[in-house]
């Protein structure tokens, strides 16, 4: 259906318009973006009934290269459609929030243009069913993320964070591209649904493991999985609406989204299980542990996002019904409560001027509505009953318990899961209880935009956060409402098979419920003892982190390229010439090696009297050039005389065109030389040291010898004589010219000439620019 393509095109086209609104209408770009996102939601909703019936909406266009399997193919199945709804829905809320969040001085047009660009790209990721298009949109989201993290580009940290995010996700994106291309080479298609249908063939293919590893590289970098998690905290330098939207709700979910997409192709294999689950588990534990340590609330939320993404990744690794359901459900739930939390932190930051948890406390009285919103989102994140987070956490525990029953070694999974969840509970409490309850603490701020007495913000910031909190509560209370329209189609699309399930709040007094209660009790205890916990964490803090490795690797890379550049581009002309000539010799040798043996003296043509005289003179002049290394001027003139002799040789060999050209080139070159010599000192140049002269001599002899052999080889070749014959015969009838040389130049080999004069022009411009630049520098000095 054609409407699908508009879902992607609409935000992208709107992004181009966003910066064009007149400066006077400050809020116009923001409202424009909100309206566009809302219409995308409406457009998506119109596909709802068909998705509900289990009929995916497809659209494909045989463009740009269907013969290579590269064509625009979009498909909205339950999973893509559901995720697109999250992207557009949260996008609408974020745009509304950002209208009120950004100060008047910010370049709003640019901000909303980036945001819409991202929205379009992200919708492209979730709706593409051609994997190559998916990769293109995937990279576009990285670019948009780079632009948005670096939005406050005046700040050094913003630039650092933007680069880091782009480098890490970019490297992963290359891995993904390689994996997808290998998949194409192995299977002959980029089409996702065809690959799913032929999953057995993929799994049996000898390239299975490399394909898997490369695709997972893309997934893990994008979704900030250990050991690539470290870019996400630095991405928090972006404005808070961006963090809420890209770096918690949608973009970082692209990785786990793709896991859900390719899940039916790869699941069931040992490699898939072990890599995905262990990486996910490690990330979940590391993120939750680190989140508790952070004092900046946004950094805390960043690590918590890493942790939750780890949880989702791990669940997809298990490859069971329950795990796929839990993961898919949790993606939706997490998008709601984490985006809500980010918006709340943005509000708190806006009102008090700080995000440091040590400086905040007891704000409940001043900001009651914000407190309620935060409560719903934070408790959902902690996994408290009657909220959406509880439901997916219960499913998670159900899966863990099932894994635990496989044998006593497998008990490690539920044990670690509970450990991670306890920390999750603690950091969620820090955001909610720590900020809004207890003694009133508020950083005395000097920032101009923060009022002296914090209060609830205007509706524009409260409504988006409030709506997200409402979703958390509604889903938590009546899970069935969402289930039929969103969750079931999504889970079935992920699993690629219909299976029956019901998400309910009360299962009876089961093991997962006991584990949930255990988690909450332990969480409360640990939260109350958080100061002691902090001390323990401080004692075991390690200074060697992934950041250290990244910075070290980057500095090392820059350092080594500097070193290499200095080595190669050292400014010594002699060395440049030497290497250029040596490379040529090597290349010629490689090309000529097979024919060198075929040159026989019997094939050479004889030379006449005049030619002999000229050649002897030529040899004498050439020797003279080498011999007389005294003054520059005389050297130049001797070189010129060599050229003149060559043109004489051309004349004798009846090539008047070449003779004329050579003669003119020699004259012009000598004048050019003179202009250069004018600048050089009068005295004779110093001779090079002996070892240089030796290597120069070897190279010169090799060069000259090879050229000589090549010419001999060419003139000995019989086929070559067919060419003059051909040109003599066809020149007049086909090109209307009697001068073969000129006809070859302008007609037969006209394309070559066009290339040559282009090179000439570029060379002249290069020389011009270099000399002018030099002049400019001298003037500056």
């Amino acid at each position, binding site marked *: 259906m054609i409407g699908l393509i508009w879902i992607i095109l609409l935000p992208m086209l709107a992004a181009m318009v966003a910066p064009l609104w007149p400066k006077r209408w400050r809020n116009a770009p923001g409202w424009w973006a909100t309206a566009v996102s809302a219409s995308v939601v409406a457009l998506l909703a119109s596909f709802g009934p068909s998705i509900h019936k289990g009929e995916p909406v497809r659209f494909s266009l045989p463009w740009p290269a269907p013969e290579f399997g590269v064509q625009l193919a979009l498909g909205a199945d339950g999973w893509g459609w559901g995720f697109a709804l999250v992207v557009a829905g949260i996008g609408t809320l974020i745009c509304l929030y950002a209208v009120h969040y950004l100060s008047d001085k910010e370049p709003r047009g640019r901000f909303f243009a980036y945001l819409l660009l991202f929205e379009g790209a992200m919708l492209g990721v979730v709706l593409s069913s051609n994997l190559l298009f998916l990769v293109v949109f995937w990279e576009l989201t990285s670019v948009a993320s780079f632009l948005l993290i670096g939005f406050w580009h005046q700040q050094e940290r913003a630039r650092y964070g933007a680069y880091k995010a782009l480098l890490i996700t970019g490297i992963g994106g290359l891995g993904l591209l390689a994996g997808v291309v290998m998949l194409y080479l192995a299977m002959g298609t980029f089409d996702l649904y065809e690959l799913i249908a032929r999953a057995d063939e993929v799994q049996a293919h000898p390239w299975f493991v490399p394909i898997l590893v490369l695709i997972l590289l893309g997934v893990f970098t994008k979704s900030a999985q250990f050991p690539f998690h470290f870019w996400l905290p630095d991405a928090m330098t972006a404005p808070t609406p961006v963090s809420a939207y890209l770096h918690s709700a949608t973009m970082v979910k692209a990785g786990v989204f793709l896991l859900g997409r390719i899940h039916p192709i790869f699941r069931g294999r040992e490699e898939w299980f072990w890599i995905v689950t262990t990486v996910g588990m490690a990330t979940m534990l590391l993120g939750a542990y680190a989140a508790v340590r952070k004092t900046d609330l946004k950094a805390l939320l960043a690590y918590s996002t890493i942790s939750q993404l780890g949880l989702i990744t791990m669940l997809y690794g298990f490859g069971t019904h329950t795990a796929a359901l839990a993961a898919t459900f949790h993606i939706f739930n997490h998008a709601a409560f984490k985006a809500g939390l980010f918006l709340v932190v943005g509000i708190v930051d806006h009102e008090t001027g700080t995000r440091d948890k040590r400086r905040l406390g007891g704000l409940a009285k001043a900001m009651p509505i914000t407190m309620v919103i935060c409560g719903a989102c934070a408790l959902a994140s902690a996994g408290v009953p009657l909220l959406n987070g509880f439901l997916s956490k219960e499913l998670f525990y159900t899966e863990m318990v099932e894994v635990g029953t496989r044998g006593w070694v497998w008990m490690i999974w539920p044990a670690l899961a509970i450990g991670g969840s306890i920390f999750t509970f603690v950091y969620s409490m820090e955001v909610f209880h720590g900020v809004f309850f207890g003694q009133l603490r508020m950083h005395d701020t000097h920032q101009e935009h923060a009022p002296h007495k914090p209060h609830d913000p205007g509706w524009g910031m409260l409504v988006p956060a409030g709506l997200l909190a409402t979703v958390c509560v509604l889903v938590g209370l009546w899970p069935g409402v969402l289930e039929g329209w969103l969750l079931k189609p999504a889970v079935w699309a992920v699993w690629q098979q219909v299976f029956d399930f019901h998400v309910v709040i009360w299962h009876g007094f089961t093991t997962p419920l006991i584990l949930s209660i255990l988690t909450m009790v332990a969480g409360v205890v640990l939260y109350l003892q958080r100061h002691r916990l902090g001390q323990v964490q401080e004692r075991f803090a390690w200074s060697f982190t992934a950041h250290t490795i990244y910075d070290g690797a980057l500095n090392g890379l820059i350092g080594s390229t500097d070193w290499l550049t200095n080595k190669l581009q050292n400014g010594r002309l002699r060395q440049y010439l030497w290497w250029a000539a040596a490379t040529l010799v090597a290349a010629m040798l490689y090309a000529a090696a097979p024919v060198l043996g075929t040159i026989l003296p019997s094939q050479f043509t004889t030379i006449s009297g005049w030619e002999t005289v000229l050649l002897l003179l030529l040899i004498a002049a050439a020797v003279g050039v080498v011999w007389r290394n005294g003054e520059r001027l005389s050297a130049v003139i001797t070189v010129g005389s060599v050229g003149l002799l060559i043109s004489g040789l051309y004349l004798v060999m009846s090539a*008047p*065109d070449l003779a*004329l*050209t050579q003669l*003119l*080139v020699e*004259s*012009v070159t000598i*004048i*050019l030389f*003179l*202009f*250069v010599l*004018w*600048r050089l000192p009068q005295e004779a140049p110093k001779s090079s040291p002996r070892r240089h002269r030796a290597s120069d001599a070897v190279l010169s002899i090799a060069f000259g010898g090879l050229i000589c052999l090549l010419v001999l080889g060419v003139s000995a070749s019989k086929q070559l004589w067919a060419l003059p014959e051909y040109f003599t015969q066809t020149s007049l009838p086909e*090109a*209307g*010219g*009697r*001068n073969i*040389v*000129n*006809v070859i*130049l*302008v*007609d037969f080999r*006209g*394309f070559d*000439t*066009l290339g040559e*004069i*282009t090179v*000439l*022009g570029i*060379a*002249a*411009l290069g*020389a*011009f620019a270099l*000399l*002018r630049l*030099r*002049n400019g520098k*001298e*003037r500056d000095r």
Partner: protein
Amino acid sequence: MMSLILATVSRLLLPVLALYSLHLMLRGHNAPGGGFIAGLLTAAALLLQYVANSTAHVKQRLPLNYTVLIAVGLLLAGGTGAAALVYGSAFLEHRMAHVHLPLLGEVELATALGFDLGVYLVVVGMTLLMVSTLAEQKKEAGR
């Protein structure tokens, strides 16, 4: 260090050389000559002016932007090639026609001449751009 004799002779030579280069240019298709050679000859004739007179002398009398000359030459050469596409021929495929011009009689005109003219302009522009930049360089440094 200007030589009066060289300066005078070079000025007298310029029109002769220019005419000769035009001759070379036009006859290129059938006899020794062509855009490349004619371009070099024109450039050499103007270089002589640079050497025998002065940079300022040439600049004053020849207000040409050599960079633009290169660009025009490239466009002309590429353009005549692309023009062939309009008539359904391949890129750079040339055509010719015999036209009767007053005074000159039967003359053969080929699109190849346009291409050759492009080559001519690029060669002139390139040579003079390099030399004039070098010449100005000398002046700057000598200050």
